[in-house]
């Protein structure tokens, strides 16, 4: 029996038993569409977590030991949304008897405000502005120095040589220890002296390969150090990996359940047509062809239903991809949602292809039970009993 004929008969059975086909296909379509959307939502959730963590201050890639300030401009390339240049150096801050070592970071206030969310973490006062001799201090440092907005503090070298006086214009609190302890920010043009390490915060466009960009940077500036967010935020990386694993388990579980459903429904469908299978066996259809017929039927059904489900899933993702799903009302109590509580579902290769591929492979497995049932039955037994 030619495969083309098996394919034709399978297609005709599905087409001319369209009610049963629609019911069976509905299960697959709804499962695939939901899971394409859920997978994209999971990607969007991870993106939101990364965005909330990296857009606070660090960016996706931190570049340190940049030889010259001008070199940082080489880092702007395809896939890179923004490169923020910073200068940093250890100093001492004091007011009266209180003395505190700080890492002073010189920034471009306009660009930082556009690209990071640190300014949104102001608890008193305001963010620094270009051209002013002002400091933006962490709440913890301000408390230790016993200063508040409007006070003046002295800045000196680590040996205690006074260099400059700054006015505290704002106090912030992020809840993230490395930003809250021993950090102070001033406009780049107020940064004392020409010394200080140049660092960069690189922000990538969505979907850009971070490894690829880091590799290119290492070629352009071999003496500099580039650290992707996964290395300086390993806890977030772990969380996202676990999230991906959970999603894979959800996908497998859902399709196992769906395939059992398909198998049961298809067995009922096969039992309904058992006499016809008996007649075909009596006509000399071999067991391998009976199995092929049933597997092809389920295969055709799941492939077409999975394709339709994927299209529906893509449609659902595209509906929310630009507007996003605003969960701000549920996330506002969490101080770490500094950037936004909006999740933008995003399709990736895995989100797009894993659900339909799983549907087709589990669907094919669902054909095994009905096929074995029919193959094992003697045609005479079938024709006598039905």
């Amino acid at each position, binding site marked *: 029996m030619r495969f083309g004929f098996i394919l034709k008969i399978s297609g005709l059975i599905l087409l001319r*038993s369209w009610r049963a086909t629609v019911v069976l296909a509905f299960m697959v379509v709804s499962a695939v569409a939901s899971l394409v959307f859920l997978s994209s939502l999971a990607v969007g959730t991870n993106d939101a977590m990364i965005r909330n963590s990296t857009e606070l201050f660090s960016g996706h890639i931190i570049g340190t030991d940049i030889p010259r300030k001008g070199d940082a401009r080489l880092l702007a390339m395809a896939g890179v949304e923004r490169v923020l240049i910073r200068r940093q150096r250890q100093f001492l801050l004091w007011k009266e008897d209180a003395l505190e070592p700080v890492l002073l970071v010189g920034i471009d206030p306009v660009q930082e405000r556009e690209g990071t969310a640190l300014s949104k973490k102001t608890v008193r006062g305001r963010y620094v502005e270009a051209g002013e001799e002002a400091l933006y201090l962490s709440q913890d440092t301000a408390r230790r120095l016993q200063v508040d907005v409007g006070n003046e503090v002295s800045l000196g070298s680590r040996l205690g040589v006074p260099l400059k006086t700054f006015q505290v214009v704002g106090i912030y609190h992020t809840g993230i220890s490395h930003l809250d302890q021993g950090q102070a920010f001033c406009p780049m043009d107020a940064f004392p002296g020409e010394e200080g390490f140049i660092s960069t915060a690189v922000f990538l466009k969505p979907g850009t390969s971070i490894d690829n960009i880091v590799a290119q940077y290492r070629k352009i500036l071999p003496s500099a150090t580039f650290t992707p967010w996964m290395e300086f935020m390993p806890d977030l990386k772990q969380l996202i990996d676990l999230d991906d694993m959970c999603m894979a388990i959800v996908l497998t579980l859902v399709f196992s359940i769906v395939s059992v459903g398909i198998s049961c429904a298809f067995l009922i469908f096969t039992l309904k047509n058992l006499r*016809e299978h008996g*007649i*075909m066996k009596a*006509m*000399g*259809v071999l067991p391998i062809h009976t199995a092929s017929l049933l597997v092809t039927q389920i295969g055709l059904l799941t492939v077409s239903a999975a394709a339709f489900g994927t299209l529906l899933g893509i449609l659902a993702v595209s509906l929310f991809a630009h507007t996003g799903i605003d969960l701000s009302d549920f996330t506002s109590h969490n101080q770490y949602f500094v950037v936004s509580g909006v999740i933008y579902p995003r399709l990736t290769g895995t989100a797009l292809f894993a659900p339909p591929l799983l549907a087709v492979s589990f669907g094919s497995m669902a054909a095994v039970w009905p096929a074995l049932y029919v193959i094992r039955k003697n045609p*005479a037994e079938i*024709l006598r009993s039905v």
Partner: protein
Amino acid sequence: MVSVQDVSKQYTSGRGRVTALAEISFSVQSGQGIILAGKSGSGKTTLLNCIGTLERPDSGSILCNGRDICALSARERALFRRQEVGFVFQAGNLLPWLTVAENLQFPLELNAIRGKMQRKRIEELLTHFGLGGYEKAMPAELSGGESQRIAFARAIAHSPSLLLADEPTASLDSANGRQLIELMFSLCRSQHTTLFIATHDQELLEMTDEIIYLKDGRMRQSL
């Protein structure tokens, strides 16, 4: 030629061991039409199934053109049925999802009769059975008589050497039933196909002298 020698078959059912066939022996020449007569449960269908290799007898042998079909493997039996046997059952013979033409195409495809030859054979069968124009009709749209004629046409489409019909007139009125049996006898004679019809319809018994009577699995009257 079909030669049935000492064929016996027993079933285990809720009533214990039931003898379906007991030492059945007879021979039939090619092109001969035989009626297997007897009441319900007499063993007609079991004998038909054994000749058609749907069932294997417990003992005895069945030779078809000198070949012992009881000794064949499951695959060989399926291939034997495909090439050498045509079946017509009581009712619901046709594959409901296929049109009349597709039903006729099925045994031809199984026997690798394709293309022009296949189309010609389908056309020939439809014309011969007076069902020209029914190619695209679905089985559900046919009357009982039309349906059985198509089933018969499908059974002989690949020119088998054996045609086995189990109560083919059970779902038909007597006129249609008679017409179908006459058609079967005449076609089988012209194509040298050995025909076995199992029936308990008394009217049909008057149509031939070549009858094997069965009662409780035993032959009561031989040819």
